[in-house]
């Protein structure tokens, strides 16, 4: 299909050209609208799930943040956390300035963000939304760490030239992505009950790590496909041992793939609800689980506030992954398309 309509196009061609674009527009609308529409609805001052007349008239009275207040609750120490985080970040910046002579404000930013989050999530007592959020933020990073470390190692192994039983191994490693979640959940529930992992933090972490591994394997092996082996040979030729070669040559080049695999693993664990319902117990209730319970029992508009925050998080993650993908392609000399 041409991108511009030629001046000699017939009426039929014109109708087709614009008609097709309108159809595509409608499909894009179908894809995006449900996600976008919950954002204004989450600011509804009433406990309704539709636009009130006041909202349609853009009356500021009809909008409020009270669902967000309910979501965040009142426990926790965000300000104290912010102060401590800023302090630690500033200290690191100063150390870097003295040691390396470069001005870097990045640690202050990271310190402030982490400080607020950790401060807010400490000292909770049965908060309806913050406790599940804390559980999610404790489970997902540990599961991600496990998936990434095991997965990267195995992906490097799989990308060697001679791997016996490669097909079978690959099929086993990818299987957690293919097997329906309800089946994984059922099997894990039965098996983890036998070995005493059911209803424990580590049970959920191991289950989520297993679910995240295929994503790490796929992204890291994809990065390794374009990896130029003469670089490691050159390093070895210059006297580097295999460990040095790995950390100084191979790791920086495959790092974008590792990080985006890690993000996939993180989002898999952070979004996962079926397995955690069965493998976890009340003490491991995560944010998606709380949303699921909320949607199934008494649906409250606070869910829309939670959903809006999750949309914001996914936008950040999407942007990061896209950035990493392009960087990886540039590093490997594949022209960005």
């Amino acid at each position: 299909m041409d991108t511009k309509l030629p001046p000699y196009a017939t009426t039929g061609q014109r109708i087709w050209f614009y008609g097709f674009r309108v159809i595509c527009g409608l499909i894009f609308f179908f894809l995006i609208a449900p996600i976008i529409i919950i954002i204004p609805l989450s600011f509804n001052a009433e406990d309704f799930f539709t636009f009130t007349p006041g909202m349609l008239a853009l009356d500021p009275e009809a909008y409020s943040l009270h669902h967000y207040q309910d979501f965040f609750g009142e426990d926790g120490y965000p300000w104290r956390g912010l102060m401590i985080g800023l302090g630690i970040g500033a200290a690191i910046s100063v150390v870097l300035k003295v040691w390396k002579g470069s001005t870097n404000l990045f640690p202050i930013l990271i310190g402030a963000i982490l400080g607020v989050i950790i401060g807010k999530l400490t000292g909770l007592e049965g908060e309806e939304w913050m406790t599940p959020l804390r559980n999610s933020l404790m489970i997902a990073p540990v599961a991600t760490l496990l998936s990434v470390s095991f997965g990267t190692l195995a992906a490097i192994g799989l990308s060697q030239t001679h791997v016996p039983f490669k097909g079978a191994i690959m099929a086993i490693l990818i299987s957690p992505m293919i097997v329906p979640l309800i089946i994984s959940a059922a099997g894990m529930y039965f098996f983890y009950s036998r070995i005493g992992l059911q209803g424990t933090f580590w049970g959920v972490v191991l289950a989520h790590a297993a679910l995240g591994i295929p994503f790490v394997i796929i992204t890291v092996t994809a990065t390794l496909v374009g990896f130029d082996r003469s670089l490691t040979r050159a390093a070895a030729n210059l006297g580097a041992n295999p460990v040095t070669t790995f950390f100084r040559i191979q790791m920086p080049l495959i790092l974008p793939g590792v990080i985006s695999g890690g993000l996939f693993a993180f989002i898999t664990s952070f979004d996962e609800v079926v397995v955690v319902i069965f493998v976890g117990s009340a003490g491991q209730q995560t944010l998606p689980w709380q949303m699921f319970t909320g949607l199934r029992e008494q649906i409250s508009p606070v869910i829309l506030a939670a959903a809006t925050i999750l949309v914001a998080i996914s936008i950040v993650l999407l942007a990061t992954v896209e950035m990493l993908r392009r960087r990886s392609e540039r590093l490997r000399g594949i022209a960005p398309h």
Partner: protein
Amino acid sequence: MTDAIQDGPMLAADGRPLKRSLARALRAQKMRALMLIAPLLLFILVTFIAPIVDMLFRSVENQIVSETLPRTVVALEGWDPSAPPDDAVYAALAYDFIAAAERREHTRLGSRLNYETTGISSLFRKTGRGVDDIGEDYADQFIELNEAWEDPATWTALMGSADWNTANSGDVDGAGTLFQLSVAAREAFPEASDAYRSFARTIQAEDDDSPTAEEPWNPVYMALYRDLSAGNGASYDGPMADLIAEAMPAVASFEGMSPREAFEDIDDDWLDLDVWGTIEAFSDPFTAGYFLSSVDLQLTPEGVTAQPEEQRIYLLLFWRTLFMSGVITISCILLGYPIAFLLSNLPTRSSNLLLILVLLPFWTSLLVRTSAWKVLLQQQGVINDILVWIGLVADDSRLALINNQTGTIIAMTHILLPFMILPMFSVMKTIPPSYVRAAKSLGATNFTAFRRVYFPQSIPGIGAGCILVFILAIGYYITPELVGGRTGTFISNRIAYHISSSLNWGLAAALGSILLAVVLVLYWLYDRIVGIDNVKLG
């Protein structure tokens, strides 16, 4: 050419044959690759493959009957299913049942067998309360004959081995050592000694009591009566031989209910052939029963038959799952194809921008998208409001878009659409535009050029997308659970129900195994068509 021509094998620099050196290097390489993969492989095997294998095992495992009623299962062998079993089976049932009731396992078995024949659960619970009384009439008559039969010491002396009696004489604290039967008693009284050992070991394990302090259960007296009246123990000369000699002629005049009458007295259902047929059919440690139930069949003494009409739900549910997954896949093709076509034909800059509109839903939490649809599709939700406002629908007849199949199909099409667009897009990107131009220059109309040239080249993308979406759809649980209501649920919802509500884990495992088999076949197809190495994300 002055190359020296070597005799024999070619040698490497260190003097070894080159072939062997190469083989060794290759082996080292393979080992290194395997060493790198091994930790992850082990991890996946333990955390993921073992649970799946466990589930497969549970779908056929059925040890509960033979573990709870071991004697009954043995006695039932060779039973003629046209009449209730004979007294020996009922007697065995009495010994098994009282031990099971003491261990509180009879209700568990009752609920298990109730999955197969309704009514067994209540029958078992009722029997658990009445089984103590079986043999009470015999116990009374033994005690009337000689009060020594009331004394626990009589029984331990009669039944226990000499070593056990020595170790447990005097005041024993708690249960004492594990009860051991004497060889003489075992040979003389096969039934009574077995029943007594079961009694002794059960109270030791369950109540922490010693048999030296407890009078046996009533069924044990019945067992002794049955042994003596059958002439067993006529030549017994061990401890308490005088008591036996005294009872031997007396039992002929004992009166009491036979084991079958005793069970009939508790509940008429014990004469029901269906109950016995179920116990017999499920006495094997492995059963195909769960799988048969999964496809609306049942195991009866007459063989495999169809379930009663009102209990046939699973085939319908499997069919509905496949049908709705098919509808969702087709909707995804219809909506995804134009988008993939547009994206692959636009200049890179604008297609990258539009791709974000596809990737954003892909990255957004499943729960967020499901809650969005739950909010939008409600009767008082945004879509109905708009339809009423436009005037398409009257305010009092708002459309039911949620808690039915429509809701599930709309929401899941939206959720799975990116999985259709992305594989299609990656295939269409590789189709050279010059082919279509060539077709047109040879006189093809736009439509012919598309149908004969472009479309056939895009089929691999459609195939990949279809299988991916279909695999994901048939296993979906969350979205149908939240927006599907009663008519829009999938087989996964039933599996979850059996795990957490009805606790029929075996049936859940069998349903899961069937679903897994379907998915694995599709996965194999996907691997053949696309290759798992070619799965791309984002």
